């Protein structure tokens, strides 16, 4: 109880309560995350069960009964007769899963390499940071495309569909690790010269333990900020890759896949197939990004 009261009184919580943008962004993103997690229970239809699909339901406009079957869908259906609302719920689930996993992977990789470079210095640092510099000269999406293409070459054709999502996560993660590594390296170099680290070295604490117990907790602040903004980036990267047709397969549509399918019908009048997934992606990426912006400002002592 005391702990909750103290958290409520902390600077961060105060800054959160006094930022309407942050509150709205948090509510929207939390709502979407909840909806995505609960998709199997709250979705009105199962878009992945071919038996429940009726091709006659295809192209039902939102909120109106279908001309042939009389079935009505809140957000309409796509060309296959899949309920758009249900597909969005499941699609958000996939988008969030890929985004979160990619960020987690990029974070673990970036933090480890950043700590290694910052702590060791010398040629280890030079080597890792030159790799990072080279990678930064390419757009992240290009790197992800490249890794995705190469990885697919190694996977037997039979298991490509199931592996696609993991390949996607690794591709996006590998294209984003640099951001974490650079920030962590810089912070680690500052922290390792502080006297509390020297105090631990005087008593001969093992370097791995010093890095994990002393330095890591003190570099996590900026990492949290990048991770939040990185989540929005990863969701967009996943949507872009899926839109380009190299991401998750059409049998497991993510928001990007839905947008790709929808844009084919935009000019023939079936606008809802594109619009609703696009709005969902926009709301998700924007709210997560705004949350990240707020966190960055709240944790920046110079802006307080």
């Amino acid at each position, binding site marked *: 109880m005391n702990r909750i009261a103290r958290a409520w009184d902390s600077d961060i919580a105060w800054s959160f309560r006094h930022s309407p943008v942050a509150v709205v962004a948090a509510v929207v993103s939390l709502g979407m995350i909840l909806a995505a997690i609960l998709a199997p229970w709250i979705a009105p239809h199962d878009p992945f069960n071919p038996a429940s699909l009726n091709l006659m339901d295809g192209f039902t406009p939102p909120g109106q009964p279908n001309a042939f079957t009389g079935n009505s869908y809140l957000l309409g259906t796509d060309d296959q007769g899949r309920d758009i609302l249900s597909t969005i719920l499941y699609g958000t689930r996939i988008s969030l899963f890929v985004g979160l996993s990619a960020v987690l992977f990029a974070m673990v990789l970036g933090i480890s390499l950043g700590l290694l470079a910052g702590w060791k210095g010398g040629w280890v640092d030079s080597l890792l940071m030159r790799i990072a510099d080279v990678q930064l000269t390419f757009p992240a999406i290009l790197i992800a495309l490249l890794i995705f293409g190469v990885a697919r070459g190694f996977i037997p054709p039979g298991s490509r569909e199931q592996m696609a999502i993991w390949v996607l996560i690794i591709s996006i993660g590998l294209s984003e690790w640099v951001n974490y590594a650079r920030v962590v390296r810089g912070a680690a170099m500052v922290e390792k010269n502080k006297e*509390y680290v020297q105090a631990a070295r005087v*008593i001969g604490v093992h370097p791995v333990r010093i890095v994990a117990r*002393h330095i890591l907790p003190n570099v996590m602040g900026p990492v949290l900020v990048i991770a939040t903004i990185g989540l929005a980036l990863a969701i967009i990267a996943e949507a872009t890759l899926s839109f380009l047709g190299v991401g998750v397969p059409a049998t497991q549509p993510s928001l990007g896949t839905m947008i790709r399918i929808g844009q084919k019908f935009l000019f023939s009048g079936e606008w809802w197939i594109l619009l609703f997934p696009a709005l969902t992606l926009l709301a998700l990426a924007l709210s997560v990004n705004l949350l990240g912006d707020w966190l960055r400002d709240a944790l920046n002592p110079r802006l307080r």
Partner: protein
Amino acid sequence: MAEPLLQVQGLGRRFDISRPWLNRVLERQDRQFLTAVADVDFTINRGETYALVGESGSGKSTIAKMVVGLLPPTSGRIVFDGQVMAGTEGASMRALRRRFQMIFQDPFASLNPRWRVGEIIAEPIHRFGLLRGSAVTNRVGELLETVGLSAQDAEKYPHEFSGGQRQRIAIARALSSKPEFIVCDEPTSALDVSVQAQILNLMRDLQDELGLTYLFISHDLSVVRHMANRIGVLYLGRLVEEAEGKALFRAAHHPYTRMLLDAVPDLALSGRRRQPVEGEIPNPIDPPPGCSFHPRCPLVMDRCRTGTPPVIATQTGRAACHALTLAADV
């Protein structure tokens, strides 16, 4: 009584400050070295406080870091209670490490801001496996009370304390492994003057109580006068004079020591003529030849510009100055 605990013999440290290899090749530069400490000898006896004084850049902190093993010496050796320290590793080093500790200059940087005070103080206890379970908590509480804080403070974070209180926490941490020897690197220079005296008195009380030996690094002569049994004066990485504490203030032999003592503000307003400290400490990358103090020395002679002065005995200790050698010869 005079049983040596720490012996420093011919200690030297050179830093490689060369540009990166590629720049050196392209710009045709040689490697550059900075000699922070050269040929320093001193012995600290059990139970005494040995102070090292000098201006910024005189190598005080470098010596402190080498003594506690944070920095390997490039020459010379450090003997702790009969055991040579540099190069020792494994179990014997672990046993040695428990017996010495360090107190740092900046109490705002020496405590990990993410750790509770209790965890900070207990770290050496866990590291050396001295106690376990609830005995650790009791010991931490005891230590906090020893340094004038309360046992409940173990639950708090460092940012909840003032500079003086933080330095007390740092002292409690240093004491937690029951060391015999503590290196104090300017422990009061980051504190308010009113708090300085409290910390110094606490350190003296602890010394009497626990029989501690201190290596005390400072640039503040009034602090050193209060604390030290013996004082070593450093100039540009070399020990220029060493004397018994009170004697140094009565009769300084080396011209640099005299210059430092003259610079101490005269609160009694006795009206004595003071000679201000002139000039600045030279660049250690390119030190002056001969006696490194000669560009600032009022007694400078020809031989000071060419030869390093030998160390000779004085009435109060020892000093390295050509003028003193000459006076002794006559």
